[in-house]
């Protein structure tokens, strides 16, 4: 519980905490920036590499770089918001501490004034009693004394003046205390307002973060459905550009499944499935154009392509039967062209971002570099 002094409470929280959080956000942003730089360097290392595999590689690297940059920018922005709030909070906290001290002193002065007023009142009462007693004294006791009566009345009047003065002082100090308490409340409100604004600004900044999407999740989303998924691709969505982070059904996908399951267990905020239509729509157009080109060179990917198709159809909310039918059509169409259905074909047909996992697809038995691209970037 925050310390309360003279009716003024310190605000919740700790001075400097916001700056520590901002520092952590900055550190995380720096991590993403380093990663973007590393990916950029990796990309710059192969200026003479051409072909489909190189396209896949460049596209992948550009996506990672963009995702990392987006994350870094979002975190930097959030850090700035938190830091701005931290400045305001720390200043307000310090002001409230000063107000507490002032109010404490004020309270002490009120007590002194009240005590003095009480003593003056007592003196006045005693003097008035003496005056009355002097006025009514019987001749047996010495009789009426004008001088004594006048002294007592003067003393009573002086004590009354003191009492009134101290009462006025106490009243002024009480008003001052009230003003200080009111000012402290305004500081509290200022902190609350700044916290709300910083919270909204941070939320907005976080909106710029790439989102992790498991394409195969059912529309309802949630952890319950996730266990039943086959996330053949793990997508990173960064603004208008999106591509799968891991494709295929190999070790990479297994690892992704494990990671996502772990993430799902501890982070219910991760959005699953078709949760981001605008970027998804945008990336479909991109995936289609890329996939259209690479589809011409698609090579068999075993069960991966049809499985991707199936997952994509399920993600679109189609029934298992319809999904299977469409998958067969997809595979058949690709087969007619002399090429088996691959992840790329799945993307052409259904726009699954996992298309790019086949982005390095190559003519079967053909181009070595493309074969590598497929192995390196396509098959997980």
């Amino acid at each position, binding site marked *: 519980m925050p310390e309360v002094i003279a009716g003024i409470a310190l605000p*919740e*929280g*700790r001075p400097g*905490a*916001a700056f520590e*959080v901002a520092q952590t*956000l900055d550190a*995380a942003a720096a*991590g*993403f920036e380093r*990663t973007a730089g*590393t990916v950029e360097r*990796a990309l710059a*290392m*192969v200026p*003479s590499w051409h*072909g489909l595999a190189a396209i896949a*590689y460049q596209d992948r690297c550009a996506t*990672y770089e963009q995702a*990392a940059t987006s*994350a870094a920018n979002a*975190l930097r922005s*959030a850090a700035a918001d*938190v830091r701005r*709030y931290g400045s305001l*909070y720390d200043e307000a*906290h310090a002001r409230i501490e000063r107000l507490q001290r002032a109010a404490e002193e004020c309270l002490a002065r009120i007590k002194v004034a009240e005590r003095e007023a009480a003593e003056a009142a007592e003196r006045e009462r005693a003097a008035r009693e003496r005056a009355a007693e002097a006025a009514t004294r019987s001749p047996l006791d010495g009789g009426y004394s004008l001088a004594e009566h006048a002294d007592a009345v003067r003393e009573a009047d002086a004590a009354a003046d003191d009492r009134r003065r101290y009462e006025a002082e106490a009243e002024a100090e009480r008003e001052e205390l009230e003003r200080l308490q009111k000012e402290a409340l305004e500081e509290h409100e200022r*902190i609350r307002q700044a*916290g*709300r604004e*910083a*919270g909204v600004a*941070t*939320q907005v900044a*976080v909106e710029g*973060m*790439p*989102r*992790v999407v498991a394409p195969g999740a059912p529309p309802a989303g949630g952890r319950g459905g996730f266990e039943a998924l086959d996330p053949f691709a793990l997508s*990173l969505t960064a603004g208008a550009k999106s591509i799968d*982070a*891991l494709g295929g059904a190999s*070790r*990479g996908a297994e*690892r*992704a499944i494990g*990671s*996502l399951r772990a*993430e799902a267990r501890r*982070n219910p*905020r991760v959005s699953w499935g078709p949760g981001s239509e605008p970027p998804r729509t945008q990336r479909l157009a991109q995936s289609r154009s890329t996939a259209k080109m690479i589809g011409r060179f698609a090579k068999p990917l075993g069960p991966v392509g049809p499985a991707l198709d199936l997952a994509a159809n399920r993600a679109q909310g189609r029934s298992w039967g319809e999904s299977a039918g469409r998958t067969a059509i997809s595979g058949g169409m690709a087969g007619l062209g002399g090429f088996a259905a691959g992840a790329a074909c799945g993307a052409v047909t259904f726009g699954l971002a996992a298309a790019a996992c086949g982005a390095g697809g190559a003519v079967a038995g053909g*181009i*070595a*570099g493309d*074969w*590598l691209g497929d*192995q*390196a*970037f396509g*098959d997980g």
Partner: protein
Amino acid sequence: MERFKVSPSELEGAAGTLGRVEGSLGCPTRAGGELGSAELESAVGAAFEAADAVALAMADALAGAARNVSANASSYAATEAASAGSFGAGR
């Protein structure tokens, strides 16, 4: 003859960098009540979680890519050598 110049260790390095990013998140400074604003605490928590999820996914993705490059770089060199003068040349 070797034309594939991306060093697997470069991508491994990127993966490691991302791994470190992931590890640097979720720090204890966002302990309850320290910021003095529930709204901001919540937003910062969401920022950490989002960054955590992205870092985890990217680390996985880059680790996967690095692993594949690492596993296939030698195959690439051999294949390119075999097909030199035909499809692979000049890539």
